[in-house]
């Protein structure tokens, strides 16, 4: 539901297209335009001119070294992406999904529906090869997410309707992680155990403090036992995010709304197993952990 009327949006149009509104106004106008069914020709009419204000500026030669800095920054992101890919590969292997849904290397993407397509909980095929081939920064994340859902499915026979809802819950948990990862400035991490075949999952944190986590393969908790999620900034102490119990299906999910950690690359996100909820320091070792990278 838009907070602004069409008339109010028209009144803000020149400020909006110039970028001269405060962030709350920008958000409200954007919300309105996203949902309004009425035409807003004023946005085109006024906004079409704005790019040429940028072109009115006299070009200036930048420092020679700037190009090197840019290429180095891109290289650094690529290396981080490759590390994430490698983590995804290890994850896929450790979960034993290789035989059903092995992700094809990005370089070799001929359509191989039989070997590279799995079926998601809704029955829709998930083509992992295609997801991975599109090597956007988010590509690896989508691929891992699909694998986690698929592996969760593989653990049960989906023809039993009672288990379909479990799979759908897992899909919903993974979707939440992806949504947060895709927010501007969102960070995502693949959470793995040290040994192959252990629990694995995904977590994401956004600059607004929203956090989500989806896990598979966790040992069931009993009594007051919980898994506690932690976010650790590179120079900070562990921040407790929240806790959850795990049943016999091994799935776990957690969402939180106000994580006070900087949403910058290099956050450690991990899980510990605790005797009860409410602990303020993690009981090591971590069950799974991962380092965050750019999610969007």
């Amino acid at each position, binding site marked *: 539901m838009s907070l602004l009327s069409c008339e109010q949006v028209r009144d803000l149009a020149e400020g909006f297209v110039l970028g001269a509104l405060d962030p709350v106004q920008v958000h409200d106008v954007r919300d309105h335009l996203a949902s309004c069914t009425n035409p807003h020709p004023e946005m085109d009419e006024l906004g*079409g001119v704005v*790019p040429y204000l*940028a072109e009115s500026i006299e*070009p200036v030669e*930048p420092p020679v070294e700037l190009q090197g800095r*840019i290429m180095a920054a891109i290289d650094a992101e690529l290396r981080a992406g490759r590390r994430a890919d490698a983590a995804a590969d290890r994850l896929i292997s450790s979960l034993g999904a290789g035989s059903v849904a092995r992700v094809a290397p990005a370089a070799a993407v001929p359509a191989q529906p039989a070997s590279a397509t799995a079926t998601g909980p809704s029955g829709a095929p998930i083509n992992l090869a295609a997801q991975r081939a599109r090597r956007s920064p988010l590509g690896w994340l989508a691929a891992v997410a699909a694998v986690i859902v698929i592996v969760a499915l593989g653990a049960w026979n989906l023809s039993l309707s009672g288990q379909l809802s479990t799979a759908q819950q897992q899909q919903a948990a993974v979707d939440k992680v992806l949504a947060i990862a895709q927010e501007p400035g969102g960070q995502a991490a693949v959470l793995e155990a040290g040994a192959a075949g252990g629990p694995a999952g995904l977590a994401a944190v956004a600059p607004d403090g929203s956090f989500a986590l989806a896990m598979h393969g966790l040992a069931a908790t009993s009594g007051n036992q919980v898994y506690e999620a932690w976010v650790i900034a590179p120079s900070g102490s562990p921040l407790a995010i929240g806790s959850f119990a795990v049943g016999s299906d091994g799935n776990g999910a957690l969402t939180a709304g106000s994580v006070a950690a900087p949403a910058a690359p290099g956050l450690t996100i991990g899980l510990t197993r605790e005797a009860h909820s409410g602990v303020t320091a993690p009981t090591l070792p971590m069950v799974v952990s991962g380092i965050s990278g750019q999610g969007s």
Partner: protein
Amino acid sequence: MSEPVARVTGRVNSAADDADRAVLEAIAGGDHGAIAVLYERYKTMAYGLALRITADPGLADDVVQEAFVGAWRNAGRYSTERGSVKTWLLAIVHHRAIDAIRRRRPTSELPEHEEAPPPSMTLPDVWSEVAGRLDRDEILVALASLSAVQREALELGYFSGLTQQEIAVRTNAPLGTVKSRMRLGLLQMRRVMLGASPGGGEPA
């Protein structure tokens, strides 16, 4: 004003736009070196814009770096509906630069995190064909056709990082007057630019 626009939108895109799109597709397809081509093509415009907004060479370096890394990261999301590649790229530079100076201001109202893409980035650039043929001199002629207060309002609105409310205080003018100057200034520029474009004033 709607008629001239309707006439220009259907034209074929310029060769330069096609070449830019090809570069962006290459980047999106994994040719990471292609960002150097884009950089070479637009580095002086990008740096000039960043420097104009930040008035700080060090900060302008950071802004241009962030903008090109951002363009590399988001090349796959570019759509022609967002205007030419040049428009898209300069909108990223503008957004990053405004963000940088607003963060630097002690009374910044910005939230800690990065905002969504700038308004101009999400708007269709209905003029790409007209303005693709407009050189900087013609854009300056359009700017020069504005009254001094209109030009000031547009420049403060686009380059200063101030909000309309802050501009009203800065220029000691009522908010309604500032808004009106901006609106009339944009419309006047549009009129002059359409007139300056070859064919822009001809019947369909």
